[in-house]
């Protein structure tokens, strides 16, 4: 049932502390919220961005081949960090086409986490913003 080992309990008391060479984990349990068995790639146009804490939510409209539209919500990072990266609520105006690579919500709703977000021209969203020191991941044109 809910019996947890000593190690788990102690680890739980300290998680969210230091993330050195250990696996990284979010403030929220993404593995409980999103389904590892449902990786998903979505292409759509931004309709609005909820600039809220703890995490931003990007709303997009996805059109299927038969022309049917579906609304999706994409979970992003905290606005606080994005502001420090030079990104604000105007950085993704309505109509911006994006590609989302993430995992669908376990509850079956049209929600996913925005593990990677890419502009259709191949530019990774936000990566390469001036002076951010943001990492590259090989997805952008010209990256290794």
């Amino acid at each position: 049932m809910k019996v947890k080992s000593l190690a788990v309990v102690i680890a739980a008391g300290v998680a969210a502390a230091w993330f050195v060479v250990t696996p990284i984990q979010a403030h929220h349990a993404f593995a409980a919220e999103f389904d590892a068995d449902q990786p998903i790639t979505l292409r759509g146009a931004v309709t609005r961005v909820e600039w809220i804490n703890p995490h931003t939510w990007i709303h997009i409209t996805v059109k299927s081949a038969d022309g049917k539209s579906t609304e999706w919500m994409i979970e992003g990072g905290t606005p606080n960090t994005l502001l420090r990266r030079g990104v604000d609520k105007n950085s993704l105006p309505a109509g911006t086409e994006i590609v989302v690579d993430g995992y669908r919500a376990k509850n079956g709703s049209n929600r996913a986490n925005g593990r990677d977000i890419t502009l259709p021209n191949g530019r990774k969203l936000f990566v390469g913003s001036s002076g951010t020191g943001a990492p590259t991941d090989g997805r952008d044109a010209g990256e290794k």
Partner: protein
Amino acid sequence: MTNRYARFAGAVIVVSGMLALAPADAAAQSSSAARAKPAPRAWTPPKTPWGEPDLQGVYSNKTITPFERPAEFAGKAELTGEETAELERRVADRSADKRDAKGTDSDVSRAYNEFWWDRGTKVTTNRSSLIIDPADGRVPPLTPEAQRRAEEEWRQPIYRGGGANGRGADWTTDRSLFERCITRGLPGAMSPTAYNNNYRIVQSPGYVAIQIEMLGGARLIPTSGGAHVHGSLRQYMGDSRGHWEGSTLVVETTNFTNRTLYRGAAENLTLVERFTRVDPDTLEYQFTVTDPTTFVRPWTASVPYLRTDEQLFEYACHEGNYGMEGILSGARVEEAK
């Protein structure tokens, strides 16, 4: 005495009449705690116009320095330049966003690419661990009593752990107080995490306030010492009393609740923090954890808080905590399978 507490938080005012009954054992316990004194230094920290050491400013404590000394550095308290460069290279490698295998829980747990995180890329000390006492740089073992408690932890009515490690998702109380946007407790709230590692210190005569970006909120610490509130008053952030020792602000906090765990310690924790400006841009933050019901001996960590030009932003964590809904509803779907 009444006047001293008049400016303090409402809850404390309510119980100030009980101060005479405050237990003395907490202070006695902390006196045995190890206190690593900073090396003598030429730089003299400035003072406020009213004559107290001036700690004010905005600081960040993000760091990649390991909290506990990794096995690979056993017996080695300080790292060479090459070794710190190697640590930073490893983190940079992580930041290069090599995905864990797609379709694994570990990949989902990483949530986003590194762009969304702000956990630091540099060591902030040449020490091999933030823990400075005991000498092995490791958290001391749990007492047998604490080990027994840990085995019974699952019987607790609420989940008392931290991070994003819930013990299930029957209801919100199975999730951590951090995940629920309530608190990280102490010293959790003073410890670096994945982002929002910023703190603003402001002072007025007799008080130091520490605004904490992650989860928001501020600590209001009287610097005139005084006894702790009565032991029956318990708070997530405990009851903090400060005093100056030279240029160092020393804060002792007791009266924690039994609803949070810090590495297994809860209501019997006595936390002693020491804030010292060691150069114009560095506030050395030391904390000593003392809880004889949990650890076989007290232990101390030292975390550099580096001055930054950042502004603090509000982190109204609960307002859009859709994640909680997603976790609970996701669990219902899993159950139905």
